């Protein structure tokens, strides 16, 4: 099975792998669909076999062998430790304070890690109407911490989001504390270029790690605010063969199961 001349990881694969590495074994993770679900399941299939994955449709402890296309795929229910109703997921498990990590994607993020999945443009006259909130607002406020994964571009990384669907650090500083939000908020933002973290005090997103081969200029050009770099910027270690193989096997199984070319 091992291809000795394995293709190197793509930037999307590196983004998924770097995100997966953040999840620790035995953590309880509330998983969004798409990239977060790919990363969370990769963690489960590699270094964190006992990670507990919870999906908003009700499965607790889901162990899907293929990535779900929708948030309520039967595979999630079949492989879960238990399936509870949707009100129970939000009331007892999320609001109840049982979630260590909320894992989210977004269409737009700003310098204080606020997320927009509602509209580009104004709410009344949107340029682009996006799907809306789903479970994200309460995941962003109630999970003990939040990881965010999305591709980086100046269009997606803006100074201020058009619409705060899910709060990060609001206006920055101690805004979350003033709102008395239960969780600490976003602690890591993982992209195909870098990892950003909130700077101590201001909570402005600051680059702390770069993927191998990515320059600071590339990150600056792909960020809609004058992005700062931490004093010591680490280089993210490249994908190991086992990480890459686990991810590609997962994607391959998923494509076959869903009968489609692109399973992300």
């Amino acid at each position, binding site marked *: 099975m091992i291809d000795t001349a394995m293709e190197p990881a793509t930037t999307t694969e590196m983004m998924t792998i770097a995100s997966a590495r953040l999840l620790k074994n035995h953590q309880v993770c509330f998983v969004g669909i798409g990239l977060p679900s790919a990363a969370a399941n990769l963690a489960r299939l590699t270094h964190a076999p006992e990670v507990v994955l919870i999906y908003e449709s009700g499965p607790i402890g889901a162990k899907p062998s293929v990535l779900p296309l929708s948030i309520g795929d039967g595979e999630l229910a*079949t492989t879960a430790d238990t399936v509870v109703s949707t*009100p129970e997921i939000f*009331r007892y498990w999320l609001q109840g304070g049982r979630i260590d990590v909320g894992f989210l994607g977004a269409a737009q993020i700003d310098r204080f890690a606020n997320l927009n999945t509602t509209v580009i443009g104004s709410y009344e006259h949107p340029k682009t109407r996006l*799907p809306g909130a789903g479970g994200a607002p309460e995941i962003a406020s109630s999970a003990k911490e939040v990881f965010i994964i999305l591709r980086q571009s100046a269009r997606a990384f803006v100074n201020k989001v058009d619409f705060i669907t899910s709060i990060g650090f609001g206006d920055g500083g101690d805004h979350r504390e003033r709102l008395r939000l239960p969780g600490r908020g976003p602690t890591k933002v993982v992209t195909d270029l870098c990892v950003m973290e909130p700077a101590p005090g201001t909570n402005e997103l600051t680059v702390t790690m770069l993927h191998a081969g990515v320059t600071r200029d590339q990150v600056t050009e792909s960020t809609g605010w004058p992005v700062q770099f931490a004093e010591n910027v680490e280089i993210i270690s490249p994908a190991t063969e086992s990480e890459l193989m686990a991810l590609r096997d997962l994607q391959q199984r998923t494509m076959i199961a869903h009968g489609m070319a692109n399973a992300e």
Partner: protein
Amino acid sequence: MADFSSLRDAIRDVVHDGDVLAMEGFTHLIPFAAGHEVMRQKKRDLTLVRMTPDVIFDQLIGAGCARKLIFSWGGNPGVGSLHRLRDAVENKWPHPLEIEEHSHADLANAYVAGASNLPFAVMRGYAGGDLPKHNPLIRSILCPFTGEELAAVPSIRPDVSIIHAQKADRKGNVLLWGILGVQKEAVLGAKRSIVTVEEVVDDLEAWPNACILPSWVIDRVCVVARGATPSYAHGYYERDNRFYKTWDTIARSRESFQRWIDVNVYGVAGSEEYLQATTAGPAQEAR
């Protein structure tokens, strides 16, 4: 006690123009056959309620059945946009659609409040977000014991709720399992309800904590095998992911959408004929 009837009679008798109509099922057990019957009977001015409008409400909205939509996530799961919903919001086609937008936690709590005979639900949510600025029904309340500020949202009490389930027994008691979403709450909070089921059995053989809706909380039970397709029924059939992808093409233009409902909804007498055509072959494919 629930009456057994055909789906056609159930929709005719139970759903009225202008009703607040909830059709629930969280990706799983979405009552598509019932949605098609609502379209076929040309029900109008409905306020549609669903956490995830999904393809079922994209169809009802495109067919002109809806005046208003109450929802919390309006995409085609795993695929992209709901084009008929967007066309209605952005271009008022086929006519204007009022939207009332919430989060999942909000609507889930609001259904619980409805089933609990309460006027509103209390939750931790929305703090720091923009949705409350645009939806005046999202308000706040102070805890009378601690003074903590919490979000308050009105309960959902539909005129009619429709769900799909796996089994009914001959008395009309209904059993559902797998991903349950808010189906139980939607039925218990509604004035009237219809449940479509895959099959009727002599004995539900349910374990004591199973999700059962007793016959006496349901108005009509209709046997509609494959009534949730292209969504799925756990233990019966899989989600038709290919159709969800194909829908993106069908719904993208008004013309192809119209052709699709002409053939697959208006052009068939009922769900049996539609499902026969779809299991036999290409009726659902884009054309």
